[in-house]
């Protein structure tokens, strides 16, 4: 056997093994062994009732300033737009997920005094959020229009009256909209939203 014959035979063997590995990886061992994918057995299980909420991600608008000829700048993390300001447009969301075993309702409020006036200040500031559906039927009623964010002493905003717990309908996104007036004080702003879950 010549060297080139050995090279092609080894290449064939490697490719064949890689192919088998790829098929197993994609379909699981059952796909090539005929392993039964169903069967009958008797078992007993106690599913613990648990209220649980998971929040993922944040919205970072970065730094910028209101344009010289604008009365305010508007930043929208859902539309991915900035008008009247130098901030870089972003499309970002916070994801809220029910990772428990019961349906929950979800309310939200900002920490401290961080409603629009407390967070931004100036003349007619705006700090709003809205729910963005990512899975069909996850919420019976989702607050899908931009709504003012209450601070920690105001009545929490009802975001979702019934967030289901099964995987195909257990989450939604939150986007934020800020309007920063040109007379807002300079400085860093950040706020934490507390997403409160209660069995629905």
């Amino acid at each position, binding site marked *: 056997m010549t060297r080139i014959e050995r090279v092609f035979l080894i290449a064939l063997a490697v490719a064949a093994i890689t192919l088998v590995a790829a098929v197993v990886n994609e379909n699981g061992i059952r796909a090539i062994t005929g392993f039964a994918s169903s069967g009958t057995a008797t078992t007993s299980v106690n599913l613990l009732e648990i209220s*649980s909420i998971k929040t993922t991600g944040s919205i970072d608008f970065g730094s910028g300033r209101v344009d010289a000829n604008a009365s305010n700048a508007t930043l929208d993390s859902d539309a991915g737009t900035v008008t009247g300001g130098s901030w870089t447009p972003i499309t970002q969301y*916070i994801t*809220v997920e029910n990772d428990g075993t019961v349906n929950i309702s979800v309310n939200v409020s900002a920490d401290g005094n961080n409603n629009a006036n407390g967070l931004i200040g100036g003349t007619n500031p705006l700090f709003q959020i809205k729910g963005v559906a990512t899975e069909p039927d996850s919420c019976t009623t989702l607050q899908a229009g931009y709504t003012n964010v209450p601070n920690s002493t105001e009545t929490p905003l009802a975001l979702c009256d019934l967030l289901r717990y099964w995987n195909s309908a257990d989450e939604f996104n939150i986007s934020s909209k800020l309007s920063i007036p040109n007379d807002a004080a300079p400085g*860093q702003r*950040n706020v934490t939203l507390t997403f409160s879950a209660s069995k629905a």
Partner: protein
Amino acid sequence: MNKILVFLIALFIVPAVIAVGVSPPSVEYIFQPGMSDDLHFYFRNNQDRDTTLLANISGELADYAKITSADATVIRPQEKMYVDLHFALPDSIGDPGWHSFSLVATELEATGGTVGARGQVVVPVRFFVQYPGKKLDIKMDAQDAGMGEDVKFKLSITNLGTEAVSNAKATVEIYKGTDKIGEVSTDEFPVDVLGKLTKDLAWNSGSNPQGVYAAKATLIYDGGPAFANATFKIGTLDLDVRNYTRVVGKGIINKFLIELESRWNRNIDNIFADVNVSKGGNTLTSFSSAMQTLGPWAIKNMTGFLDATGLSEGTYDIQIRLNFSSEGIERSKIVDGQIQVVGGEKIAPEMKANETKKGGFALSKYLTTINLLILIVIVLVIINIIILIRKKKKNENQGNTYI
């Protein structure tokens, strides 16, 4: 002042995921004067990092409860902890109905950012103060049905009072708009103190047409009536074409959507659409599309591809013929309309994104790892066979025996 620099940034590196879970998710009691109890709540950390949970009590009856274990605890990854709580209520907590306090579990970390997030779970501990005397509550659930089938009503009746009810009777009236079209009733039945029971009723929809109907339940007993309302739908095995692609581009193959709405209270299966585009009665192009299943009352798009390579700009007649079935019953329906064929540059951007160029082939669809590996194996097998044949011929020419 309009050149103010506003920083909307975070100060720290913060976790991307925040989660908090508590069990049980709620606790309920029938209020007894002076009652007290100890409760244990299970907190879990499903994350791969430590988490700090803060527990506190809030709500109307918060003054009567206190946490007896540590109220702030670091929970290790995949571990759990318990929060203990003790409450002792006075002899009276208010008017009949529900009263409560809540255990609130808040994760102290947040996701950070200009707008960050943290999770919080509120666990209500509720106490029901019974109504003096006789007080029944009724709730009703009405199920959708097909024409000629029974509409089933489920009545849930609870005695919220301090006295038993010996004779109660429920009647459900059915309305189409303001017209009463039917009525069904239960026999008389007793309801014990704190008793809960369900009563099932059925009303045959007969020949009443497809649509939305109202049901009004009245519970008559010697403490006074109670009421409940519900709506239900009577279905028929039918599909509505709510909308379809009205404008397509000339000279290309266009993605074509047909929005279907089910008027049936069961699954509709094996939905086939045959679409014909014609002018002056002459069919110019056609295509077919299929959908396996459409759920009860569901609205869903059916997708097909209309070849407009032979069509010039203008308005054309379109006919959508639908064939579908449910549980062995087959139906068909024809919808006529019009579409407009326009120059490619006039198509809306979202429609352009869905175009497939004439004669186009979505190669990327087939460029999977497995398909590439299969191709490589086939090529290598062919090369090895060629080498083998050549070697065999060479050996034969040399008069050798090849093994």
